[in-house]
């Protein structure tokens, strides 16, 4: 989301918090409401289209959940079998012969 405050992507206009009527937001422009001068932002008003874009970004790049939490019982069972070789009760001789060229 670093681009959201990048002037190449979105312009900003600043208005004091004491102003009672804010400009109508337009797409691609953020209205920064300053509380104590330009150093302190009280709020930022954006157009609904920009908000939708922001929400999409949040969904795509949202907090990552460790993949392990989504593993199924089958995935775990297969992995445990494979880790100890218990999935192969015998050797796939035909395949091994192919590898050996015999």
């Amino acid at each position, binding site marked *: 989301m670093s681009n959201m405050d990048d002037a190449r992507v979105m312009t900003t206009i600043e208005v004091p918090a004491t102003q009672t009527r804010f400009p109508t937001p337009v797409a691609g422009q953020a209205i920064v409401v300053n509380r104590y001068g330009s150093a302190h932002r009280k709020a930022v008003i954006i157009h609904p289209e920009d908000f939708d874009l922001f929400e999409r970004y949040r969904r795509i790049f949202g907090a990552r959940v460790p993949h392990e939490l989504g593993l199924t019982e089958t995935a775990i*069972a*297969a*992995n445990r079998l494979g880790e100890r*070789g218990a999935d192969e009760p015998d050797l*796939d001789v035909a395949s091994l012969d192919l590898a050996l060229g015999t």
Partner: protein
Amino acid sequence: MSAPRLRGAIVWAVVPYVPQAPFRVWLGDGQPIATIADATTYARQARRSGLDPEQTFLVEGKLRPVVLLQDRPARRLPEIVALRMVRLETLKARQREAIREHREPSLFHLALQPAKYGLHKEMAVDLNALVRVHASAMLPRAVGALDDSEMRVIGQRLAEHLDIDLEPLIAARVEARLDELTRPAG
């Protein structure tokens, strides 16, 4: 002569199991095998009495097919990252069915196609079973291969399985593309 393509190849290889406690250490001819309860005990022992430059651990392993994930055209690194495969026959019927119907993203199904995969048993590539294989631990002749589109799917899923954060890479590429599109002509 160019090196054979390894990425996607199915090869037979010696695959050791991941070492786990208790650890068994070979101390030399005529010596009993030492058993160390866990990594902390091992570290304390090393701290107390020092260690030889290296130890010989007794680790079980198996000859089994793996799918290679990397090419080594310059042969500069002898170790290759691979994914272990698992045979389906010891799983329950409903589990096998879920894998065949692609409802298990961790298990990439390889149907019984000896001409393509070189395997005579139904298997799945286990996305949770990343291994490194030394070139000398593989049989040189590949028995089969996954095609480019299969490898693309595996690559995408693997990034998720390894919790790799692709956001900075994707964001940088999107930004670069946007810059290209919005750059003034001329």
